[in-house]
């Protein structure tokens, strides 16, 4: 039962983190664009719970949930959205790059598809180093049309690499429905072109995603190569929040998906299995307090100093071009 409680905790963290981030974005505290994962919590946490803490993970532009799924500390994530120096990336990355390397993340990259070759390379590194770490690569239906997807699956297959390609098919690439943009009925159908075993799972069902990812991780660890998993899921929000207008009229579709809300489904399951309602309520309270604490932490943190713009272009300061002092 503990794994359900812990999964619920992380899913709840994602949901509340996103809801509060949207509010702080609306009131002007969070700058830039904000891509939220509400609705996708089960596939995120299900996949992450199937991994070991030392396994690697690569995310994308819609990646607030991924580090939370892998149990990252919340405060530096929220502070990053607030562009503070205490942020996980020191205020350099923001919403689209909310990557916490301490939990195995190797980046959340906002050019759609560009993280996939990186995941392949991490898996190659694990294989060459002779360790049994696997790499979980999150990507969306939109990325599956990019060349990087196809090159990555081909390389992972011919080199038999320990990588799990987990497609979060949330039905839209910005405004373009997957049904109009993808040449096959399911993204999973593309596995066969690369001799990669694939399966389709209900992305709103935590256990289904967890079990599929475990099977894939076992295959990867035993040297049997990559797996392609397609989790059918849905994002509740627009592509990015507060874009000023609704990009797609989704009609009743949104309501239908909300009726299969992953948190509601998991609560029901826990109760059915004889779990404690009180523990779930306690988790809700605990998470609410935790997220508020993270917001307070972010608000009370300083912005990075202007001269930090020149840090981490390279390891150490490279002085060949004009730096801040000559721009003042």
């Amino acid at each position, binding site marked *: 039962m503990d794994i359900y409680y812990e999964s619920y905790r992380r899913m709840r963290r994602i949901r509340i983190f996103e809801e509060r981030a949207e509010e702080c974005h609306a009131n002007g505290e969070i700058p830039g664009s904000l891509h939220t994962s509400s609705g996708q919590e089960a596939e995120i946490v299900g996949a992450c719970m199937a991994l070991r803490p030392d396994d690697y993970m690569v995310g994308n532009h819609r990646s607030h949930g991924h580090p939370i799924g892998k149990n990252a500390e919340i405060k530096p994530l929220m502070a990053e959205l607030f562009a503070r120096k205490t942020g996980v*990336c020191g205020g*350099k990355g923001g919403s689209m790059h909310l990557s916490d390397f301490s939990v195995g993340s*190797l*980046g959340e990259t906002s*050019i759609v598809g560009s993280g996939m070759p990186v995941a392949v*390379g991490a898996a190659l*590194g694990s294989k060459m*180093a002779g360790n049994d770490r696997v790499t979980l690569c999150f990507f969306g239906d939109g990325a599956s049309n990019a060349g990087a997807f196809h*090159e990555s699956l081909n390389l992972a297959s011919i080199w038999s690499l320990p990588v799990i390609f987990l497609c979060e098919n949330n039905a839209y690439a910005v405004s373009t429905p997957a049904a109009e943009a993808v040449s096959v009925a399911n993204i999973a159908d593309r596995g066969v072109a690369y001799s990669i075993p694939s399966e389709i799972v209900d992305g709103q069902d935590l256990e289904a995603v967890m079990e599929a990812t475990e099977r894939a991780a076992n295959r990867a660890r035993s040297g049997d190569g990559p797996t392609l998993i397609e989790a059918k899921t849905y994002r509740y929000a627009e592509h990015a929040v507060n874009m000023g207008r609704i990009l797609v009229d989704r009609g009743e579709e949104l309501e239908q998906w909300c009726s299969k809300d992953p948190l509601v489904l998991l609560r029901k399951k826990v109760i059915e299995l004889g779990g404690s309602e009180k523990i779930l309520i306690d988790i809700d309270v605990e998470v609410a307090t935790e997220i508020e604490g993270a917001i307070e932490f972010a608000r009370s943190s300083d912005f990075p100093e202007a001269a930090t713009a020149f840090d981490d272009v390279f390891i150490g300061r490279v002085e060949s*071009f004009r730096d801040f002092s000559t721009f003042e």
Partner: protein
Amino acid sequence: MAKVSFIEAIRQAQYEELERDKNVFLMGEDLVCNVFGTTTGFLEAFGPERIRDTPISEEGFVGAAAGASMVGMRPIVDLTIASFVYPAMDQVCSIIAKSRYIYGGQAKLPLVLRMCMFYGNANAAQHSDRPYPMFMGMPGLKIIVPSCPSDMKGLLKSAIRDDDPVLSFEDGTLWSQKDEIPDDKEYLVPLGVADVKRKGKDVTIVAIGGAVPLAIKAATIVEADGISVEVVDPRTLVPLDCETILESVRKTGRVITVDPAHEACSVASEISAMIAERAFSFLEAPILRVTTPNAHIPFCPSVEKNLFPTVDRIVTAIRSVSN
């Protein structure tokens, strides 16, 4: 000391670093068959895991090098012809150049991308590019453009040991050059240090890659007219050793920048601007650029050869700034 060719210098640098560090590996197209002669004996010595032939999949394997470097490996990617990096531009510009920055220093990407610039050989426009200047405009990438075998070897070894991503642009017009290189596995040329290839007092030529031997020849020709030319080779474009260039300019007051790249936004342009900003009061003549005009490289050899910097064009420029 042994006399070795430019190609052999590349081979030795890679071999020695593969031998020195088990995390170094080589990846690219047609390495096992040793298409350019830079991997002679590698497969036998290091095996197919570390001498890794790839499919024609530049975006995939350049990105894979980035991922492997983030988990502790030190890949050298042989892209063969420089323009083959274009299919991988997203990985170079959005992942390799920016990952350390956007993740606030959490990532480290010790990798080398090797690219040969195969111009002047009737290979037409798509195979004749010298694209290093465009990467100078992308922060986060170190860039070497060696002009002789000893620099090639020493800089490539430093690049492989460097913890930042390094692009190595290797000038194909230099391949047959031979040079003495110390028999020392710790022979390194540091990144970011220019070299004065010829001492002089009247005119400074800052030359890039294959233009360096041309500049030296031109300097020898005008010596008969009593013009003493200093030739400065930056060797690395990022970091750029501005001080060595400026020191020469302050001495001579007359400057020519010679660069085989296309003129617009060339390294010649960048260095000229830097000199104009920082040493204007020392200048006694306008800075001249000798570059390749902004036309594509045609197939026909007799038309092609006139486009790149030549000894004659450099001599004309020297006389012009000396008047």
